[in-house]
């Protein structure tokens, strides 16, 4: 299998499941952790990620399908497309297309939050756009199931810090229409931004 990329906790490989193109996300062993803790973290997170993706899918959000779970690895349907962060500079040329993508990204986050799924790393680097313009949310490695308004607000904050001031309102408007309790989440977002620690902490995204 060919390695496509490498993150802090997992490696991504090109794979095939029953003849179908897939990617394998494999959580790697960390030599610094005592063995039982290492096994526990890797297996818990693998199971939790697959469970959250299935839940998101069941609630109508656009996420790639989980094909198979095997120990510390998840096989996920492989999608064609580009990440939103790589498309940002096209905004001026393709205003209408970009507007639709951002609306869709806002709508998808609203749907995830309706299902009490917090993504944990909701940035343009985790929004995939297919050649047909369909928007998918990927990488649920840091996702959690919680009804915490603060956690939901942090998903918005991360996106806010990752895209320009002109683009963010498009995203937020669409989120507002899609999430049932967007009022509390947006109020909380204001609170968080007024707090000292987030004022001095500019978020940097890769």
């Amino acid at each position, binding site marked *: 299998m060919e390695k496509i990329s490498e993150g802090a906790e997992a490696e991504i490989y090109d794979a095939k499941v029953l003849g179908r193109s897939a990617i394998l996300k494999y959580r790697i062993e960390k030599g610094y952790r005592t*063995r039982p803790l290492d096994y526990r973290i890797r297996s818990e997170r693998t199971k939790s990620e697959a469970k959250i993706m299935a839940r998101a899918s069941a609630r109508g959000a656009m996420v790639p399908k989980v094909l198979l779970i095997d120990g510390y690895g998840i096989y996920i349907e492989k999608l064609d497309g580009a990440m939103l962060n790589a498309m940002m500079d096209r905004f001026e040329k393709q205003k209408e297309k970009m507007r639709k993508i951002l609306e869709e990204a806002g709508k998808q986050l609203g749907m995830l939050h309706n299902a009490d799924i917090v993504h944990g790393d909701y940035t343009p680097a985790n929004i995939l756009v297919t050649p047909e313009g369909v928007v998918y949310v990927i990488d649920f490695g840091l996702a959690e199931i919680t009804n915490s308004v603060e956690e939901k607000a942090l998903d918005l904050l991360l996106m806010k810090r990752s895209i320009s001031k002109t683009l963010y309102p498009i995203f937020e408007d669409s989120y507002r229409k899609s999430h049932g309790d967007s009022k509390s989440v947006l109020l909380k977002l204001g609170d968080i931004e007024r707090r000292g620690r987030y004022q001095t902490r500019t978020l940097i995204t890769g």
Partner: protein
Amino acid sequence: MAVIGIESSAHTLGVGIADKGKVLANEKMMYDVGTTGIIPAKAAEQHIENIGSVIGAALSKAGMDKSGITGIGYTKGPGLGPCLRVGQLAAKTLSMELKVPIVPVNHAIGHIEVARHVSGAKDPIVLYVSGGNSQILGIINEPFRHYHVFGETFDIGVGNMLDSFARAAKLNPAWGSSVAKLAEGGKYIQMPYTVKGMDFTFTGLLTNAVKMLEANDPRDVAYSMQETAFAMLCEAIERAMLLTKKREVLLSGGVAQSKRLKEMLEIMTATHNGAVYAAPNEFNADNGAMIAIVAEKMLDTGMQKKPEDCDINQKYRADAAEIRW
């Protein structure tokens, strides 16, 4: 020609003298925290009684008298108000008496910068672990050159957790050394593990560990708590390393004295062709030399303050301090 630094943010009263980046003296006197922890007013009282003699000891160690001092630095914060006041007052008095420039120094920056200075790290990701704080930082140039906080504890510092556990286990709290000793030969028991991106929390782990002392072998509890806490720090800093593509990890602060933490970081960084940098332990524990070293860099880059602007700030954040050098 020398800069004197006074550190009095908590139980340690330290006076250091530096000249062109070289430490000439690093004297200290410590308030005994005993089993009750630190009582700020009592510690400050002891600092006041001893400040004159510790300054005297540092000067004689450096082989000089007061007239040789060309600059003064003191800890502005973060720390305990009554304790910080002692260093501030002594520094201002000295500055007026000797008519030499004075500069306030951030305590965390003191630890980090002295470690960077003596270890030779150039542009590291920093793991700053002390009693009151635990942060992951790195220098960025916008909007001004400073240590950006990539991640930090949402509740207590890891040192605070180790000390509180040590007290519950009837051990002498000392940046985790007594916990590390107890942990030798322990077996792993499952404990709460909380990392969110590059941030982490320790109170859940502490509460759980203290409760587990009732029905488990204390060695197993100490081992499991230490392993869990340090693994959390390693995971967060690994993420920061990959995000920033920095390859040097600088370990600083009181808990940097832990051998196990350093060993775990070495295993982690080796998988990314990186390396761990740290200072000798005399600079990881609170000390005056780190304030002297940073004060000299600040004075050299024109950051001196008028005595009337030399304040203290108990919650002075590391990311609010400018790094001009």
